[in-house]
């Protein structure tokens, strides 16, 4: 049971990031690797705010608004312009990769390459039967469950959520009906920035952070998106939970060294045998979704 709980908790933090990725990918078709840069910079913002003597709450608020700002800047400065010129998805991906590199190198130049932590000392531990859960894990659990459920609620109930789904379904039709596509794209990027920064904060509160964790983590989140189904907003949550449990089991029964290899074997298998994912619509991989 302990493995299962650990898996679910790490799956939830992957799920936050996977949803953040999907919230941009579905409506805009931008493979937003720059999100890895946002993910990397978020804990440094908290770290600096705390260093300047601000409280936790203010630091976290500043981190979230800073991350939203960076994500929106990526869209406004680069992706929106590329999209207006009808650039290919490859061009978006490469530009996004460039943005990631710039963000990470800036972090490394300002704060250095060394790993850092947000808290000192041992974490508080609570026991539920024979399961042990640390304080940091509680934070991940509560914030992820709150954010993911409010995201699902917002997506299915609010009119803004409906418009987001409509944009994902058919951007051209969405524009024809008279909505401002650019504004909704900006909002999607902002939402992604918020979710990614929260995911980053709760994870780094647990295990610490360094400038280079972002890309690796976002790739795992993308694997979760593929497993869950790349045509749905909620599929990634399921994919992330499964992936989290699988990764926890690999560590327990085999070795942490093979965690990555296992993750990517699963990715290859899903791409080849179940390209639409668990919850996705049936579609050929090479057709536009």
């Amino acid at each position, binding site marked *: 049971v302990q493995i299962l709980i650990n898996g679910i908790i790490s799956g939830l933090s992957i799920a936050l990031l996977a949803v953040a990725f999907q919230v941009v990918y579905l409506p805009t078709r931008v493979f937003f690797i720059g999100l890895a840069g946002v993910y990397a910079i978020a804990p440094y913002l908290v770290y600096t705010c705390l260093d300047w003597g601000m409280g936790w709450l203010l630091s976290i608020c500043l981190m979230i608004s800073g991350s939203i700002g960076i994500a929106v800047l990526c869209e406004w400065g680069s992706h929106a312009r*590329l999209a207006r010129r009808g650039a290919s998805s490859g061009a978006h991906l490469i530009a996004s990769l*460039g943005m990631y590199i710039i963000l990470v190198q800036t972090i490394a130049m300002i704060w250095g390459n060394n790993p850092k932590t947000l808290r000192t000392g041992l974490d508080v531990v609570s026991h539920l039967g024979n399961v042990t859960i640390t304080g940091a894990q509680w934070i991940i659990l509560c914030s992820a469950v709150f954010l993911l459920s409010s995201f699902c609620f917002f997506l299915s109930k609010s009119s803004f959520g409906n418009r987001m789904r409509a944009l994902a379904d058919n951007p051209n039709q969405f524009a024809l009906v008279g909505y401002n596509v650019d504004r909704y794209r900006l909002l999607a990027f902002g939402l992604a920035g918020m979710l990614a920064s929260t995911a980053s904060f709760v994870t780094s509160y647990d295990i610490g952070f360094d400038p280079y964790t972002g890309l690796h983590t976002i790739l795992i989140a993308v694997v979760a998106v593929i497993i869950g189904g790349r045509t749905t907003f909620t599929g990634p949550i399921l994919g992330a939970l499964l992936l989290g449990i699988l990764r926890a089991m690999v560590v327990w029964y085999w070795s942490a060294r093979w965690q990555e290899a296992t993750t990517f074997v699963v990715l290859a298998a899903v791409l080849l045998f179940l390209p639409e994912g668990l919850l996705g619509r049936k579609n050929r991989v090479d057709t536009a979704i």
Partner: protein
Amino acid sequence: MNYLLHILIYFEIYLVVALSLNLVVGYCGLLTLAHAGFYAIGGYTYAILSLNLGWGFIPASLAGAAIAAVMSLTISLPSWRLRGDFFILASLAVQALLFSTLYNWSSTDAPLGSWKNLTNGPFGITAIPRPRIFGQTLSSPIAFALFATIVTAFCVLVVWRLKRSPWGRLLIAIREDELATRGLGKNTRRTKIQVFAISSALVAIAGAMYSAHVRYIDPSSASLDESILMLSMVIVGGMGNFRGPFVGAAVLIILPEILRFLALPDAQAANIRMLIYGLLLILMMHFRPQGIAGEYRLQ
């Protein structure tokens, strides 16, 4: 003088890398992130064979090329069905697997190069012998530079001949419209296997040159960052023609050397270099998607 020779050798290694990657990315239109894995396979094969079995450079690098060509099936088979972002992800999976294998194939209680401790894991392989050709060891930098030039010229010739052949035109046809090419009765799947095998074999030779020159190799040669660097070289230089890789390799080599003369603090120099690459990628995508000297725009 040694400094210039060193730069020349690096330029040649990167040139072979860029030429081979351009075959896949520029001519065939498939963005791959697994290239560094095959580069490392070449480097490791040379290191292990020369260190443990005393093989010379030519047989050892050819063995590396053969292994890389066979391993390239892991990436060419997914390319049958996947395109665009999803092919890139599949290539990333291959890169992660190759990296994990090189990183984990080690054991502390077995000698280096034995079956149980083939790659020495994260510590890498040190004291790789200098290359031996026909029984002669190339110990001076100038001899190695000359030899590297010959090997590079051979690789350039191979790519040049391929590019001008009907097979090269078939690659471009696949890039432009795979379905139409199949409609014309061309076997596009076989061609994809071939292009990945050739490209991986060439980059494995570059990897062997690298490990023979530096005399040390570790799994970071197969890392994602290395793949991204290779890709940016091709994208910045230009895709889909013969000049692009020359420009890309030159930019990659000259930029750090210029920065070196600007007397930047050591701790920041590597970061600034990477930052400029990142900026170049964005600027290229906005203002010149085909790269400095390229012909093909990324799809």
